[in-house]
């Protein structure tokens, strides 16, 4: 058994989500190979080689991999899997990157994909949530090559201490279907949402974008927390859309999740209900968020949040 992991990185740094994916692969057993495809990404290949449990790093460096576009990357993975018979599993993190490229890989391999795997019971049996986290399925894959996207919050990241070989991989041809015009990345001065141990999240109850800054940010600063938002808050323009926690946004599982002015719609709960401790501050005592909150405070957030900051 050999697992091929498609590494997520930005050509400079290996993304933390890749480490969670390695941890999932360790549960499958067998060898783990990590594919680092990009442009001028030798440092990432070295970083991947130092991850505990990785047997081999395949490093493909070419201009047409620099933007990590799905078409070229999927073709490369397909050619690699075809060239080296013996791969039984292909994994990627269930992030925007993995969700984009992995189904394309699966179809090229004529394999079904199991999305958002949260537990690995055996090399062919997995658990995954569906219906916005309201149901949990145990599934068994009959495909020769199992293609799995891994929900990163369900696996602790793999550690350091690996000494894998880095093998240069010849690039496949450029399909020339798509070109990257530009990327606009929101600069974050606080922890990344999916990796944060504390998250302070705001909903429609904040009522204005500037309240996000004046009310929530000081609390997040005090707790060293990442900032999140409900879909309602994002749709209303109070927060940028990559703050969104939920079925259609990011799935998080921090130690502490503080939901401020969030009612707790199904779609939001699907993104945060695996948090260790949930605190809800809402003035409506009937809000569904109180059904999942470990500690609920029924209060006006504009009074309670400043009080809370003072008390911390």
């Amino acid at each position, binding site marked *: 058994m050999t697992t091929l992991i498609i590494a997520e990185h930005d050509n400079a740094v290996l993304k933390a989500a890749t480490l969670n994916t390695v941890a999932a692969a360790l549960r499958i057993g067998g060898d783990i190979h990590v594919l680092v495809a990009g442009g001028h990404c030798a440092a990432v290949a070295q970083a991947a080689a130092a991850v505990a449990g990785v047997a081999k790093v395949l490093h493909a460096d070419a201009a047409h991999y620099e933007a990590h576009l799905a078409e070229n990357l999927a073709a490369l993975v397909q050619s690699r899997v075809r060239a080296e018979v013996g791969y039984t599993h292909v994994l990627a993190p269930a992030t925007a990157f993995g969700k984009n490229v992995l189904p394309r890989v699966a*179809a090229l391999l004529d394999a*079904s994909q199991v999305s*958002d795997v949260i537990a690995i019971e055996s090399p062919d049996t997995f658990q995954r949530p569906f219906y916005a986290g309201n*149901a949990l399925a145990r599934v068994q894959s009959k495909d020769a090559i199992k293609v799995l996207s891994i929900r990163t919050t369900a696996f602790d990241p793999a550690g350091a201490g690996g000494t894998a070989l880095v093998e240069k991989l010849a690039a496949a041809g450029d399909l020339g279907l798509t070109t990257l*015009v530009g990327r606009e990345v*929101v600069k974050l001065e606080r922890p990344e949402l999916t990796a944060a141990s504390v998250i302070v999240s705001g909903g429609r109850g904040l009522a204005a974008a500037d309240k996000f800054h004046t009310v929530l940010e000081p609390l997040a600063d005090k707790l060293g927390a990442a900032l999140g938002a409900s879909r309602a808050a994002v749709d209303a323009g109070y927060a940028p859309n*990559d703050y969104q926690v939920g079925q259609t946004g990011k799935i998080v599982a921090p130690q502490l999740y503080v939901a401020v002015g969030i009612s707790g719609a*199904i779609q939001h709960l699907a993104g945060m209900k695996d948090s260790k401790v949930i605190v809800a501050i809402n003035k409506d005592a009937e809000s569904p968020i109180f059904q999942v909150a470990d500690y609920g405070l029924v209060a006006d957030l504009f009074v309670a949040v400043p009080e*809370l900051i003072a008390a911390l």
Partner: protein
Amino acid sequence: MKILVAVKRVLDYNVKARVKSDGSGVDLANQKLSMNPFDEIACEEAVRLREAGVASEVIVVSCGPAACQETLRSAMAIGADRAVLVETDAVLEPLAVAKLMQHVAQKEGVQFAIFGKQAIDDDAGQTGQMFGALMGWAQASFASNVQISGDTATITREIDGGLETLAMKLPAVITTDLRLNEPRFITLPNIMKAKKKPLEVIKAAELGIDIATRTVTLRVGEPAERKAGIKVADTAELVKRLKEEAKVI
């Protein structure tokens, strides 16, 4: 240019899914089913492209049982020109749907396809990308803006941490994110008009396409329930409990 829009009939997004007590799946009997919300966005975008003169025809396609005709009628009430149902009572995985959609796309000669980014029942998020792979087309998943000019589509898509813009050669497939558009309200006259629009039914079994499931669902269960929490009296008690009881700050 013809546009294919894929739509799926799913448990309405306002209904909380209930797991059957025998663990065989989610109970859909007597529940409200409607069009997957991301697919409504896909229909709306396609109709806007036709209204802008970019597309000549919008063909909406669904795969599943006969009841999916109702969903296709809704799509035609939004403004799709005609519909194709690939009918089967079999359980369909995303790969199978992608293959059936490939058949229809090739038969109809479409140049552009719009899928929702995920269906809110299986939460798989695969079909659009799989379709792109089978067709050998360019793909842009999670699109929040679409501009088509000549044989190039310029798509803005949502990524972790922000946005990226891609230039794609047509033919191409995109999957819709929530912020692409706001689907229009369906009016009664348009519902009446949709009843007269053509709806073709193809039997999936007659196509010779392998749609057998590759994944066996062993059991469907409820997720672990969270223990009931408590309501605290004030912020002082909250801080005290977080420090001393939960030990998270």
